[in-house]
Protein backbone atom coordinates (compact mmCIF):
# COMPACT_ATOMS: atom_id res chain seq x y z
CA UNK A 1 0.00 0.00 0.00
CA UNK A 2 1.39 3.45 -0.94
CA UNK A 3 2.08 5.75 1.95
CA UNK A 4 0.40 9.15 1.96
CA UNK A 5 2.91 12.03 1.73
CA UNK A 6 3.41 14.32 4.71
CA UNK A 7 2.18 17.26 2.61
CA UNK A 8 -1.08 15.45 1.82
CA UNK A 9 -1.44 14.44 5.46
CA UNK A 10 -0.91 18.05 6.62
CA UNK A 11 -3.45 19.31 4.09
CA UNK A 12 -6.03 16.75 5.25
CA UNK A 13 -5.37 17.78 8.86
CA UNK A 14 -5.88 21.48 8.01
CA UNK A 15 -9.18 20.75 6.29
CA UNK A 16 -10.39 18.42 9.07
CA UNK A 17 -9.45 21.12 11.60
CA UNK A 18 -11.75 23.53 9.77
CA UNK A 19 -14.73 21.18 10.04
CA UNK A 20 -14.29 20.57 13.78
CA UNK A 21 -13.48 24.18 14.69
CA UNK A 22 -16.76 25.17 13.02
CA UNK A 23 -18.68 22.34 14.72
CA UNK A 24 -17.47 23.74 18.05
CA UNK A 25 -19.55 26.85 17.44
CA UNK A 26 -22.78 24.90 17.06
CA UNK A 27 -23.25 23.84 20.72
CA UNK A 28 -22.41 27.35 21.92
CA UNK A 29 -25.11 28.67 19.59
CA UNK A 30 -27.58 26.61 21.59
CA UNK A 31 -26.83 28.61 24.70
CA UNK A 32 -29.56 31.09 25.44
CA UNK A 33 -28.40 34.69 25.67
CA UNK A 34 -28.22 36.25 29.10
CA UNK A 35 -24.94 34.89 30.44
CA UNK A 36 -21.81 36.99 30.67
CA UNK A 37 -19.46 36.41 27.70
CA UNK A 38 -16.70 35.70 30.19
CA UNK A 39 -18.71 32.93 31.82
CA UNK A 40 -19.52 31.42 28.42
CA UNK A 41 -15.83 31.56 27.50
CA UNK A 42 -14.82 30.10 30.87
CA UNK A 43 -17.35 27.25 30.58
CA UNK A 44 -16.12 26.37 27.12
CA UNK A 45 -12.46 26.51 28.15
CA UNK A 46 -13.22 24.27 31.14
CA UNK A 47 -14.58 21.74 28.64
CA UNK A 48 -11.48 22.26 26.53
CA UNK A 49 -9.30 21.59 29.58
CA UNK A 50 -11.03 18.27 30.24
CA UNK A 51 -10.75 17.21 26.59
CA UNK A 52 -7.11 18.30 26.29
CA UNK A 53 -6.20 15.84 29.02
CA UNK A 54 -8.50 13.02 28.03
CA UNK A 55 -7.73 12.76 24.29
CA UNK A 56 -3.91 12.64 24.62
CA UNK A 57 -4.15 10.17 27.51
CA UNK A 58 -6.50 7.96 25.50
CA UNK A 59 -4.34 8.06 22.36
CA UNK A 60 -0.80 7.95 23.75
CA UNK A 61 -0.88 7.46 27.53
CA UNK A 62 0.51 9.55 30.39
CA UNK A 63 3.98 7.96 30.38
CA UNK A 64 4.45 9.00 26.76
CA UNK A 65 3.21 12.56 27.31
CA UNK A 66 5.42 13.12 30.37
CA UNK A 67 8.46 11.58 28.66
CA UNK A 68 7.92 13.87 25.65
CA UNK A 69 7.66 16.93 27.90
CA UNK A 70 10.68 15.78 29.92
CA UNK A 71 12.75 15.47 26.76
CA UNK A 72 11.95 19.04 25.65
CA UNK A 73 11.29 20.91 28.92
CA UNK A 74 11.87 24.31 27.31
CA UNK A 75 8.63 23.89 25.37
CA UNK A 76 6.60 23.99 28.60
CA UNK A 77 7.22 27.76 28.72
CA UNK A 78 6.27 28.12 25.05
CA UNK A 79 3.09 26.08 25.44
CA UNK A 80 1.89 28.13 28.44
CA UNK A 81 2.69 31.33 26.53
CA UNK A 82 0.68 30.11 23.54
CA UNK A 83 -2.30 29.35 25.81
CA UNK A 84 -2.11 32.85 27.28
CA UNK A 85 -2.00 34.42 23.82
CA UNK A 86 -5.08 32.44 22.81
CA UNK A 87 -7.03 33.45 25.92
CA UNK A 88 -6.30 37.19 25.65
CA UNK A 89 -7.12 37.15 21.91
CA UNK A 90 -10.39 35.34 22.54
CA UNK A 91 -11.42 37.89 25.17
CA UNK A 92 -10.52 40.76 22.85
CA UNK A 93 -12.91 39.37 20.23
CA UNK A 94 -15.77 39.60 22.76
CA UNK A 95 -15.12 43.33 23.11
CA UNK A 96 -14.56 43.80 19.37
CA UNK A 97 -17.95 42.26 18.54
CA UNK A 98 -19.57 44.37 21.24
CA UNK A 99 -18.11 47.62 19.85
CA UNK A 100 -18.15 47.22 16.07
CA UNK A 101 -20.18 44.09 15.34
CA UNK A 102 -19.14 40.83 13.75
CA UNK A 103 -19.09 42.09 10.15
CA UNK A 104 -16.24 44.51 10.87
CA UNK A 105 -14.52 42.59 13.67
CA UNK A 106 -14.27 39.20 11.96
CA UNK A 107 -12.31 40.25 8.85
CA UNK A 108 -9.97 42.26 11.06
CA UNK A 109 -9.04 39.41 13.36
CA UNK A 110 -8.97 37.01 10.45
CA UNK A 111 -5.65 38.62 9.48
CA UNK A 112 -4.20 36.08 11.92
CA UNK A 113 -3.40 33.73 9.04
CA UNK A 114 -1.43 36.45 7.27
CA UNK A 115 0.38 37.32 10.52
CA UNK A 116 1.19 33.62 11.01
CA UNK A 117 2.34 33.36 7.42
CA UNK A 118 4.70 36.31 7.96
CA UNK A 119 6.16 34.82 11.16
CA UNK A 120 6.56 31.48 9.41
CA UNK A 121 8.55 33.17 6.65
CA UNK A 122 10.59 35.38 8.99
CA UNK A 123 11.37 33.00 11.86
CA UNK A 124 11.12 29.47 10.48
CA UNK A 125 12.35 29.82 6.91
CA UNK A 126 8.99 28.85 5.42
CA UNK A 127 8.09 29.85 1.82
CA UNK A 128 11.80 30.11 0.88
CA UNK A 129 11.56 28.53 -2.51
CA UNK A 130 9.35 27.98 -5.53
CA UNK A 131 5.60 27.94 -4.87
CA UNK A 132 5.46 30.68 -2.25
CA UNK A 133 3.22 32.85 -4.46
CA UNK A 134 0.54 30.16 -4.52
CA UNK A 135 0.52 30.00 -0.71
CA UNK A 136 0.42 33.78 -0.24
CA UNK A 137 -2.23 34.16 -2.96
CA UNK A 138 -4.26 31.31 -1.47
CA UNK A 139 -4.09 32.79 2.05
CA UNK A 140 -5.11 36.22 0.74
CA UNK A 141 -8.06 34.65 -1.13
CA UNK A 142 -9.17 32.86 2.05
CA UNK A 143 -9.04 36.11 4.04
CA UNK A 144 -10.92 37.94 1.25
CA UNK A 145 -13.56 35.21 1.10
CA UNK A 146 -13.95 35.30 4.88
CA UNK A 147 -14.50 39.08 4.72
CA UNK A 148 -17.32 38.65 2.20
CA UNK A 149 -18.96 35.87 4.24
CA UNK A 150 -18.75 37.89 7.44
CA UNK A 151 -20.23 40.93 5.73
CA UNK A 152 -23.06 38.95 4.14
CA UNK A 153 -24.06 37.09 7.30
CA UNK A 154 -23.50 39.88 9.81
CA UNK A 155 -26.08 41.19 12.19
CA UNK A 156 -26.43 44.73 13.41
CA UNK A 157 -23.80 45.87 15.91
CA UNK A 158 -24.78 47.35 19.21
CA UNK A 159 -23.56 50.70 20.46
CA UNK A 160 -21.11 50.14 23.27
CA UNK A 161 -18.73 52.08 25.48
CA UNK A 162 -15.32 52.72 24.00
CA UNK A 163 -16.56 53.39 20.49
CA UNK A 164 -15.61 51.98 17.13
CA UNK A 165 -11.93 52.89 17.30
CA UNK A 166 -11.34 50.72 20.36
CA UNK A 167 -13.39 47.91 18.82
CA UNK A 168 -11.23 47.97 15.71
CA UNK A 169 -8.09 48.08 17.84
CA UNK A 170 -9.36 45.07 19.81
CA UNK A 171 -10.09 43.05 16.65
CA UNK A 172 -6.73 43.85 15.06
CA UNK A 173 -4.92 43.02 18.28
CA UNK A 174 -6.77 39.69 18.51
CA UNK A 175 -5.58 38.88 14.97
CA UNK A 176 -2.04 39.82 15.92
CA UNK A 177 -2.16 37.63 19.05
CA UNK A 178 -3.64 34.61 17.27
CA UNK A 179 -1.18 34.93 14.41
CA UNK A 180 1.67 35.15 16.92
CA UNK A 181 0.36 32.12 18.83
CA UNK A 182 1.55 29.99 15.90
CA UNK A 183 5.18 30.84 16.73
CA UNK A 184 5.10 28.52 19.78
CA UNK A 185 3.19 25.91 17.75
CA UNK A 186 5.85 25.81 15.06
CA UNK A 187 8.61 26.05 17.64
CA UNK A 188 7.27 22.89 19.28
CA UNK A 189 7.02 20.93 16.05
CA UNK A 190 10.43 21.72 14.64
CA UNK A 191 11.65 20.38 17.99
CA UNK A 192 9.90 17.08 17.32
CA UNK A 193 7.26 17.40 20.04
CA UNK A 194 4.04 15.47 19.68
CA UNK A 195 1.02 17.83 19.31
CA UNK A 196 -0.80 15.70 21.89
CA UNK A 197 1.87 16.53 24.49
CA UNK A 198 1.95 20.22 23.59
CA UNK A 199 -1.78 20.77 24.11
CA UNK A 200 -1.77 19.22 27.60
CA UNK A 201 0.44 22.11 28.76
CA UNK A 202 -1.06 24.75 26.47
CA UNK A 203 -4.36 24.31 28.27
CA UNK A 204 -2.92 25.47 31.63
CA UNK A 205 -2.01 28.84 30.10
CA UNK A 206 -5.41 28.95 28.44
CA UNK A 207 -7.58 28.07 31.45
CA UNK A 208 -5.48 30.10 33.94
CA UNK A 209 -5.65 33.24 31.80
CA UNK A 210 -9.36 32.94 30.98
CA UNK A 211 -10.06 32.44 34.69
CA UNK A 212 -7.92 35.48 35.63
CA UNK A 213 -9.58 37.65 32.98
CA UNK A 214 -13.07 36.56 34.08
CA UNK A 215 -12.24 37.42 37.69
CA UNK A 216 -10.75 40.82 36.77
CA UNK A 217 -13.45 41.85 34.29
CA UNK A 218 -16.48 40.17 35.82
CA UNK A 219 -16.50 41.40 39.39
CA UNK A 220 -14.26 39.01 41.34
CA UNK A 221 -14.17 35.33 42.27
CA UNK A 222 -17.54 35.21 44.04
CA UNK A 223 -19.32 36.84 41.15
CA UNK A 224 -17.78 34.45 38.61
CA UNK A 225 -18.61 31.40 40.77
CA UNK A 226 -22.21 32.59 41.15
CA UNK A 227 -22.54 33.08 37.39
CA UNK A 228 -21.04 29.66 36.71
CA UNK A 229 -23.65 28.13 39.04
CA UNK A 230 -26.38 30.02 37.19
CA UNK A 231 -25.09 28.77 33.84
CA UNK A 232 -25.33 25.11 34.92
CA UNK A 233 -28.22 24.25 32.48
CA UNK A 234 -26.12 25.50 29.57
CA UNK A 235 -22.80 24.08 30.72
CA UNK A 236 -23.18 20.75 28.89
CA UNK A 237 -23.44 22.55 25.56
CA UNK A 238 -20.39 24.66 26.37
CA UNK A 239 -18.38 21.57 27.33
CA UNK A 240 -19.50 19.85 24.13
CA UNK A 241 -18.38 22.88 22.12
CA UNK A 242 -15.05 22.78 23.95
CA UNK A 243 -14.62 19.09 23.12
CA UNK A 244 -15.25 19.69 19.39
CA UNK A 245 -12.87 22.63 19.50
CA UNK A 246 -10.09 20.45 20.94
CA UNK A 247 -10.44 17.93 18.10
CA UNK A 248 -10.24 20.78 15.57
CA UNK A 249 -7.28 22.33 17.31
CA UNK A 250 -5.44 19.00 17.42
CA UNK A 251 -5.82 18.63 13.67
CA UNK A 252 -4.64 22.22 13.33
CA UNK A 253 -1.55 21.36 15.37
CA UNK A 254 -0.80 18.33 13.18
CA UNK A 255 -1.23 20.52 10.07
CA UNK A 256 1.28 22.99 11.54
CA UNK A 257 3.67 20.14 12.22
CA UNK A 258 3.55 18.58 8.76
CA UNK A 259 3.03 21.54 6.38
CA UNK A 260 4.09 24.51 8.54
CA UNK A 261 2.27 27.63 9.67
CA UNK A 262 2.07 29.28 6.27
CA UNK A 263 0.01 26.46 4.75
CA UNK A 264 -1.68 24.90 7.79
CA UNK A 265 -3.29 27.99 9.30
CA UNK A 266 -5.01 29.37 6.17
CA UNK A 267 -6.41 25.88 5.53
CA UNK A 268 -7.86 25.58 9.04
CA UNK A 269 -9.25 29.12 8.66
CA UNK A 270 -11.62 27.77 6.01
CA UNK A 271 -13.72 26.85 9.05
CA UNK A 272 -15.68 29.95 8.06
CA UNK A 273 -17.14 27.91 5.18
CA UNK A 274 -18.32 25.18 7.53
CA UNK A 275 -19.57 27.83 9.96
CA UNK A 276 -21.60 29.29 7.12
CA UNK A 277 -23.09 25.88 6.37
CA UNK A 278 -24.07 25.45 10.04
CA UNK A 279 -25.50 28.97 10.22
CA UNK A 280 -27.49 28.83 6.99
CA UNK A 281 -28.64 25.20 6.91
CA UNK A 282 -29.10 24.39 10.60
CA UNK A 283 -29.93 27.74 12.21
CA UNK A 284 -31.56 29.45 9.18
CA UNK A 285 -29.41 32.56 9.49
CA UNK A 286 -29.76 33.77 5.88
CA UNK A 287 -33.55 33.42 5.82
CA UNK A 288 -35.19 36.62 4.61
CA UNK A 289 -31.97 38.16 3.30
CA UNK A 290 -31.89 39.53 -0.24
CA UNK A 291 -30.18 38.42 -3.43
CA UNK A 292 -27.17 40.62 -2.64
CA UNK A 293 -26.41 38.65 0.52
CA UNK A 294 -26.69 35.35 -1.37
CA UNK A 295 -24.38 36.65 -4.11
CA UNK A 296 -21.82 37.73 -1.50
CA UNK A 297 -21.99 34.32 0.18
CA UNK A 298 -21.47 32.52 -3.12
CA UNK A 299 -18.55 34.75 -4.13
CA UNK A 300 -16.92 34.53 -0.71
CA UNK A 301 -17.28 30.74 -0.62
CA UNK A 302 -15.79 30.32 -4.11
CA UNK A 303 -12.88 32.59 -3.18
CA UNK A 304 -12.15 30.51 -0.07
CA UNK A 305 -12.36 27.23 -1.98
CA UNK A 306 -9.99 28.61 -4.66
CA UNK A 307 -7.57 29.83 -1.98
CA UNK A 308 -7.61 26.48 -0.17
CA UNK A 309 -7.11 24.68 -3.49
CA UNK A 310 -4.04 26.81 -4.29
CA UNK A 311 -2.48 26.01 -0.91
CA UNK A 312 -3.30 22.30 -1.18
CA UNK A 313 -1.28 22.11 -4.40
CA UNK A 314 1.65 24.18 -3.15
CA UNK A 315 3.87 21.41 -1.82
CA UNK A 316 7.09 22.67 -0.19
CA UNK A 317 9.96 22.54 -2.69
CA UNK A 318 13.28 20.86 -1.93
CA UNK A 319 14.90 24.22 -1.24
CA UNK A 320 12.13 25.11 1.22
CA UNK A 321 12.47 21.75 2.95
CA UNK A 322 16.19 22.42 3.28
CA UNK A 323 15.29 25.76 4.95
CA UNK A 324 12.94 23.93 7.37
CA UNK A 325 15.80 21.58 8.21
CA UNK A 326 18.09 24.52 8.94
CA UNK A 327 15.47 25.95 11.33
CA UNK A 328 15.20 22.54 13.04
CA UNK A 329 18.98 22.29 13.43
CA UNK A 330 19.09 25.77 14.96
CA UNK A 331 16.62 24.61 17.64
CA UNK A 332 18.67 21.47 18.28
CA UNK A 333 21.82 23.54 18.88
CA UNK A 334 20.07 26.01 21.18
CA UNK A 335 18.22 23.45 23.30
CA UNK A 336 20.61 20.52 23.17
CA UNK A 337 18.37 18.12 21.26
CA UNK A 338 19.52 15.24 19.10
CA UNK A 339 19.04 16.27 15.42
CA UNK A 340 18.57 12.71 14.13
CA UNK A 341 15.84 12.02 16.69
CA UNK A 342 14.02 15.31 15.95
CA UNK A 343 14.32 14.73 12.18
CA UNK A 344 12.82 11.28 12.66
CA UNK A 345 9.81 12.79 14.41
CA UNK A 346 9.41 15.36 11.62
CA UNK A 347 9.29 12.50 9.12
CA UNK A 348 6.22 11.23 10.95
CA UNK A 349 8.06 8.54 12.90
CA UNK A 350 7.69 8.15 16.64
CA UNK A 351 10.96 7.15 18.33
CA UNK A 352 9.58 7.90 21.79
CA UNK A 353 6.70 5.45 21.38
CA UNK A 354 9.16 2.58 20.94
CA UNK A 355 10.72 3.36 24.32
CA UNK A 356 7.64 4.37 26.28
CA UNK A 357 5.04 1.79 25.47
CA UNK A 358 2.67 0.72 28.21
CA UNK A 359 -0.30 2.09 29.98
CA UNK A 360 -1.07 3.05 33.55
CA UNK A 361 -4.22 2.21 35.52
CA UNK A 362 -5.00 5.86 36.23
CA UNK A 363 -5.47 6.53 32.52
CA UNK A 364 -8.73 4.57 32.71
CA UNK A 365 -9.66 6.65 35.75
CA UNK A 366 -8.95 9.92 33.86
CA UNK A 367 -11.10 8.83 30.90
CA UNK A 368 -13.88 7.59 33.22
CA UNK A 369 -13.85 10.86 35.19
CA UNK A 370 -14.17 12.88 31.97
CA UNK A 371 -17.07 10.74 30.73
CA UNK A 372 -18.75 10.95 34.16
CA UNK A 373 -18.42 14.75 34.11
CA UNK A 374 -20.08 14.96 30.69
CA UNK A 375 -22.89 12.61 31.79
CA UNK A 376 -23.45 14.66 34.97
CA UNK A 377 -23.61 17.89 32.97
CA UNK A 378 -25.95 16.27 30.46
CA UNK A 379 -28.39 15.31 33.23
CA UNK A 380 -28.71 18.98 34.19
CA UNK A 381 -28.82 20.32 30.64
CA UNK A 382 -31.95 22.10 29.54
CA UNK A 383 -33.35 22.36 26.03
CA UNK A 384 -32.36 25.74 24.64
CA UNK A 385 -34.95 27.75 22.76
CA UNK A 386 -33.17 27.87 19.40
CA UNK A 387 -34.81 26.70 16.17
CA UNK A 388 -32.76 23.93 14.57
CA UNK A 389 -33.08 22.01 11.31
CA UNK A 390 -32.40 18.45 12.51
CA UNK A 391 -31.97 16.98 9.01
CA UNK A 392 -29.14 19.35 8.10
CA UNK A 393 -27.67 19.03 11.57
CA UNK A 394 -27.45 15.26 11.08
CA UNK A 395 -25.91 15.70 7.61
CA UNK A 396 -23.26 18.15 8.84
CA UNK A 397 -22.43 16.02 11.88
CA UNK A 398 -22.07 12.99 9.61
CA UNK A 399 -19.69 14.88 7.29
CA UNK A 400 -17.70 16.17 10.25
CA UNK A 401 -17.37 12.63 11.62
CA UNK A 402 -16.24 11.43 8.19
CA UNK A 403 -13.46 14.06 8.37
CA UNK A 404 -12.53 12.79 11.84
CA UNK A 405 -12.41 9.16 10.81
CA UNK A 406 -10.59 9.67 7.49
CA UNK A 407 -8.02 12.06 8.91
CA UNK A 408 -7.63 10.08 12.13
CA UNK A 409 -6.97 6.90 10.14
CA UNK A 410 -4.47 8.67 7.88
CA UNK A 411 -2.64 10.07 10.90
CA UNK A 412 -2.61 6.70 12.63
CA UNK A 413 -1.39 4.76 9.59
CA UNK A 414 1.27 7.29 8.60
CA UNK A 415 2.53 8.56 11.98
CA UNK A 416 0.85 6.63 14.81
CA UNK A 417 -0.29 10.07 16.01
CA UNK A 418 3.30 11.32 16.24
Amino acid sequence: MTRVSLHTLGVFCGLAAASWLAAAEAPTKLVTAGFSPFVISLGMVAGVFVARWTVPVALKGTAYVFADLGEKPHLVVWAVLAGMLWAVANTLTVFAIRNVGLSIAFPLWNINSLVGLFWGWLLFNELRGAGWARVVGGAAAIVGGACLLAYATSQKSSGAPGGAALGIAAALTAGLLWGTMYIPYRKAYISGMNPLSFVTVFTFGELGTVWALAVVFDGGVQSVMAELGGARPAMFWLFLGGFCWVLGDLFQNYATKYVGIARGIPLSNTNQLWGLAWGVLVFGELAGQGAMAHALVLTGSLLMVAGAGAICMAQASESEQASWKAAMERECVRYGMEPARVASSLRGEDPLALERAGRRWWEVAIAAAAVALFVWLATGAKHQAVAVNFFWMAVLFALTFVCLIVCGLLLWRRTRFS
Partner: protein
Amino acid sequence: MSKKDLSTARAVLTDPQLWLPVAVLAIGIGVLALMK
Protein backbone atom coordinates in the same frame (compact mmCIF):
# COMPACT_ATOMS: atom_id res chain seq x y z
CA MET B 1 17.31 23.23 40.59
CA SER B 2 19.74 21.04 38.70
CA LYS B 3 22.47 22.27 36.39
CA LYS B 4 20.47 21.00 33.41
CA ASP B 5 17.37 22.95 34.51
CA LEU B 6 19.43 26.12 34.84
CA SER B 7 20.92 25.61 31.42
CA THR B 8 17.44 25.09 29.92
CA ALA B 9 16.12 28.21 31.67
CA ARG B 10 19.07 30.22 30.33
CA ALA B 11 18.49 28.91 26.80
CA VAL B 12 14.80 29.85 26.98
CA LEU B 13 15.39 33.33 28.41
CA THR B 14 18.12 34.15 25.90
CA ASP B 15 16.11 32.88 22.93
CA PRO B 16 15.43 36.05 20.90
CA GLN B 17 12.24 34.51 19.53
CA LEU B 18 10.72 34.34 23.05
CA TRP B 19 10.41 38.08 23.46
CA LEU B 20 8.34 38.62 20.34
CA PRO B 21 5.26 36.71 21.59
CA VAL B 22 5.79 38.12 25.09
CA ALA B 23 5.72 41.67 23.68
CA VAL B 24 2.60 40.86 21.63
CA LEU B 25 0.94 39.41 24.76
CA ALA B 26 1.73 42.62 26.66
CA ILE B 27 0.16 44.67 23.85
CA GLY B 28 -2.95 42.46 24.04
CA ILE B 29 -3.28 42.90 27.81
CA GLY B 30 -2.77 46.66 27.36
CA VAL B 31 -5.59 46.89 24.80
CA LEU B 32 -7.82 44.82 27.12
CA ALA B 33 -7.13 47.26 29.94
CA LEU B 34 -8.17 50.12 27.63
CA MET B 35 -11.39 48.30 26.71
CA LYS B 36 -12.34 47.98 30.36
